């Protein structure tokens, strides 16, 4: 028993110092205006300003699109990977890019997409002429999806791997065809993985900021851009924290929606 309390210390310290304390600090900061007065004006400012509201809508919309694209690519990928021999090896290949620094990958995309980059060289070679690829919504979505895909594939892959083959055999024995087995057995059982993947992709996508500037040329503005600006240039930490709090609330909403649905699904089945 004494050992157990001893072992909990690192965990408790970690949680308090790096999870609870920062959250409390952000929450606390958000109640101060730029001259250090205790106020609710940051929140009032946020809720009444068309700029911030539009930015929020923008962020949610882009995050939604990124999540959707990622999901559409990741689910079939995870499904196929699960049926391959040496699946751990193929999975490793999907995860491998996460070992490379994010900034480096983004810069690599600049090299690919730029006017003199490889893709345009190829297009010219094939006779399509060069196109503006950087600073477009499409290139932004592409890079964001590329970066997020491993985080979506992994949980889906795991949940698919957990499905016992005997369930699928049973489904087939009972006369379900391939499609029915997939929609009635595999898909529902892999839903927890899908939800975990959505959580892992949607939230970070809400506050992407490096890619919005490097690939999007600041023509895609998300809440992350605003937070960066408030902390680095205007030094209005209060407003930056307020947007941070909004993002945390958004995170809870997403967790709630995806978490709740899972339980309900469990009960009806």
């Amino acid at each position, binding site marked *: 028993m004494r050992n157990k309390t001893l072992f909990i210390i690192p965990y408790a310290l970690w949680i308090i110092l790096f999870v609870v304390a920062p959250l409390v600090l952000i929450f606390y900061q958000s109640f101060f205006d*730029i*001259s250090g007065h205790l106020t609710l004006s940051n929140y009032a400012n946020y809720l009444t300003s068309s*700029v911030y509201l*539009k*930015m929020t809508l*923008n962020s949610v919309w882009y995050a939604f699109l990124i999540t959707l694209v990622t999901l559409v690519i990741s689910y079939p990928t995870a499904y196929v990977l699960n049926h391959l021999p040496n699946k751990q090896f193929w999975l490793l290949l999907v995860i491998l890019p996460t070992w490379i620094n994010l900034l480096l990958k983004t810069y690599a995309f*600049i090299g690919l997409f*730029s*006017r*003199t*980059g490889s893709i345009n060289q190829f297009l010219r070679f094939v006779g399509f002429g060069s196109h*503006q690829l*950087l*600073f477009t919504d499409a290139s932004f979505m592409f890079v964001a999806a590329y970066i997020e895909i491993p985080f979506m594939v992994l949980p889906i892959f795991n949940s698919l791997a957990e499905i016992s083959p005997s369930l699928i055999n049973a489904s087939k024995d009972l006369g379900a065809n391939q499609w029915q087995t997939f929609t009635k057995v595999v898909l529902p059982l892999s839903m927890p993985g899908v939800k975990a993947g959505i959580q892992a992709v949607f939230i970070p996508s809400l506050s992407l900021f490096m890619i919005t*500037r*490097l690939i999007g*040329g*600041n*023509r895609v*503005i998300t809440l992350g*851009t*605003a937070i960066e*600006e*408030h902390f*680095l*240039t*205007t*030094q*209005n930490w209060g407003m930056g924290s307020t947007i941070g709090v909004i993002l945390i609330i958004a995170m809870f909403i997403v967790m709630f929606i995806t978490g709740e649905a899972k339980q309900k699904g469990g009960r009806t089945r």
Partner: protein
Amino acid sequence: MKKLLTVVISILALCAALAMGNAALNQHHGQGSGRLLTIYNWGDYIDPALINKFEKQTGYKVDYETFDSNESMLTKIRQGGTNYDLVVPSEYTVQRMKREHLLAPLDHRRLTNLHYIDPQFLNRSFDRGNRYSVPYFWGTLGIIYNDQKVSAGDVQHWSQLWNPRLRNNLMLIDSARDVFAMTLIAQGHSVNTTDYQTLKKAQDHLKTLTPNVKAIVADEMKMYMEQDEAAVGVTYSGDAREMMSVNHHLHYVVPSEGSNIWFDNMVIPRTAKNKEAAYAFINFMLEPQNAAQNARYVGYATPNRAAKKLLPKKVTSNQAFYPPARTMKHLQTYRDLPLKTLGVYNDLFLEFKMFAK
């Protein structure tokens, strides 16, 4: 359990040994604190050979640290616990540090080489009488263009950036102050405007620039311009010089109607441990031979008149980097605006960026 304990203890012992070794190394490096000079400067902003020369000449040992923005430097100094003897902030930060009493006043009797500085760079509004600062390098905000895509005559003035022919071909630097500076000047106002209505009008004007704006970027602009991604960019003279050395089709212009002029300056923080060495270093850097060598290495414009004479004619006659007197007359420095006003600048800029779709 016992094994685990041994492992933990040996790791702790190793850590302690490493920490001790590190401390010993640092001590050796310092050779006694009286001979140590700690400099806090921008990254890649001095010829390293000059540091060696200084160490040889004076016997001081230099500890050289770097920062990448005025704000991060300021935060570090403000929080205390630092013992930098010499720092190189930009002019608006000098003003703020002065106001926050972070700087030690300079004793001009000990600045024996100050007379080498061109008088037009002394006694500027951000530090009257140079009580706290000595100019290190200076530069401007201007227009960089690619001569394969536009002709020189099309980009001599800020207002020409609004030309519909530059549609989707202009890159802006991601800085509220600089983008507003160029707009305010185009409308004939001061770059230090604080009046909300004037700023709002500038923003309205800026919004009409939207069709031309290809991207609003930071340091990456160098790479994009070098790769012919856009025809025209708004950037700083130092960055422009770097781009031009890579892509020979690029040229830099400081609009004659005015622009921003900035200074990086040597200052001594109040918390300095070794002012003696700091003065020695300032005088060393003001030495024309050394200032010229540094200017050749860094590539920015030197405020040192005697050093300028030592630089190649090709460099000093380049009006883009050493603008003629009639342009110099119209260049304005940024004043350190109140945080509230800075907030207004940034909010309006953010709104402009949102509008940029």
